[in-house]
């Protein structure tokens, strides 16, 4: 994984650049004296394409992928932990509206605490419910952020 990371990342930028330019072709280009909405994105897209292509070729030639150009990616249990944190975040965003802030924030805290090494379920329960309640009070009542209450409560 580690050695292939830079080619993959630069290739992703290359694909992004192509898709971006393709979408941009629908916009009016205008003329040099009266530039349209598509001109600046065209310049940006071409730069992105050129730079990512250069980086891709360099990385295939083995440049920029040595140990000092990147940090090693985690493996095994460590990789699973990072992934689990990312999935927890995505689930929070996905379920925030249907389940409401209280449930989601408590579940998020519980998951992170457990994933990052807190073993006692009693403490996990205590901290996550406490955080959910305090943060709800702080944001909703004090700062006036309208947090979703969830389909069950409303």
């Amino acid at each position: 994984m580690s050695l292939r990371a830079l080619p993959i990342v630069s290739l992703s930028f290359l694909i992004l650049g192509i898709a971006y330019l393709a979408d941009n072709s629908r916009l009016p280009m205008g003329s040099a004296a009266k530039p349209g909405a598509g001109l600046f994105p065209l310049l940006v897209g071409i730069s992105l394409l050129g730079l990512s292509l250069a980086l891709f070729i360099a990385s295939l030639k083995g440049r920029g992928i040595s140990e000092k150009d990147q940090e090693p990616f985690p493996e095994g249990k460590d990789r699973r932990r990072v992934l689990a944190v990312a999935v927890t975040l995505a689930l929070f965003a996905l379920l925030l509206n249907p389940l409401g802030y209280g449930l989601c924030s408590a579940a998020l805290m519980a998951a992170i605490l457990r994933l990052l090494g807190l073993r006692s379920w009693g403490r996990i329960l205590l901290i996550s419910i406490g955080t959910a309640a305090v943060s709800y009070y702080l944001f909703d009542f004090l700062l006036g952020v309208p947090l979703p209450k969830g389909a069950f409560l409303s």
Partner: protein
Amino acid sequence: MDSLQGLAYGFAVALSGPNLLACLFGVLVGTVVGVLPGIGPIGAMALLIPSTFSLGPTTALIMLAGIYYGSMYGGSTTSILVNVPGEAASVVTAIDGYQMARKGRAGAALAVSATGSFVAGSLGIVALMFFAPPLAEMALEFGPPEYFALTLVGLVFLSGIGGGSKLKSFLMVAFGLLLGTVGMEPISGLPRFTLGQLSLAQGVELVPVAMGLYGIGEVLIIAERITGVPELIRVKFRELFPTADEWKKAFPPMVRGGGIGFFIGLIPGPAAILSTFAAYSLEKKISDRPEEFGKGAVEGVAGPEAANNSATAGAMVPLLALGIPFAPATAMLIGALIIHGVQPGPLLMTQQPEIFWGVVASMYIGNLVLLILNLPLVGVFASILRLPQYLLMGLILLLCLVGTYSVNNSILDLYILIGMGGVGYFLRKLKFDMAPLILALVLGPMMEKTLRQSLFMARGEVWQIIARPIPIVLYSMAVAVIVLPFLYRMVKKQSKTRRHS
């Protein structure tokens, strides 16, 4: 308004109840995030921008600026006590600061670093006060071609001298510009690259991107390893006083560091970080005992810590005088100004003097507060590090999520936040610099607008945009930044082969 009058007016603004509170709160938050790993000044500013909606723009800016320079104080604390720099700008401080701490001079190192920050911070503010108004006056003559040149050349400088791979940095510029074009186009209001999503018409906002890259991305990296609570060196209050000899050695580096820091702060780039390296190598070079550096030389703490503080003042110059941010942290400040409906630019100083002078005066007050706060309370701040990792990371993640959601009450922003967190994780691991991305995102719309206005004015003749006195100087400087390192390497290679043959 001349400087003294302006400053007096500024103090009247900054000392009013809410502004004083905002300043206190800002520097306090800055110190805390400076200490904490996983969240730095950029993340904290992004987090607090939404909560400034109900405040006036002056109050908001005073608070956010406080976070910026406050974090410079906090970052040094952990460098000295645990050899873990809280911020990149405090990496150099760890070299000699931690060695001093191991020799039982932790208190002295902390005191020198706080005093150095204060001395240089104050010098920097004085310089800011004298530099910014004439620059703003000059900038009144600037038209779109000048602004386009400034923003473009600023991005080139940032990527060219930031260290690391230039190709990667320029790619980040392009990616940031790309993100900046999403949403309604600035002149005709045409929606672009919205993928049919109505909520994307507002564009990709700065807050979720910054918080994703700097907050979530960092937490994901920290989550790779479960670590215990770091061991702290305990500091007793009476140990906080450096000896007369230490003071004598530390004072000149503070002044020199302050000078270097300010001027490096003016240049686009990771000013605070670069300035610490510059100050450290200068002190080592001119010292008559260079062998002591790395083994607990007090100059190695005083110089860099002074430099990173005055660099923050230097970085405020282009922001307040031209309305152009050249550092990620000042990009957050400009983001806040725009949200509050303030038009940043050279007119800011004359049309809304309470913002400029209020912020400048609040920086004096903030630096004084930080000095008073940091010396006796240093143990309290450092003990934040005793909080277990799982608790800290959980809270940071929750804050990032709620903070982002609260900007627009938008779930889409949450997806952008998390997506940017993932992008930030990979790019950081591959040693891409995040600063060009953030700045390009902020400067992009300004660049597009000024480019199109310039072309319109010049009736499409590109040469007329370039061949103006200020732009042509700026463009030549940009070309030099790109070409000179190549030439240097070629000359070096040639002289090497000559030596071999």
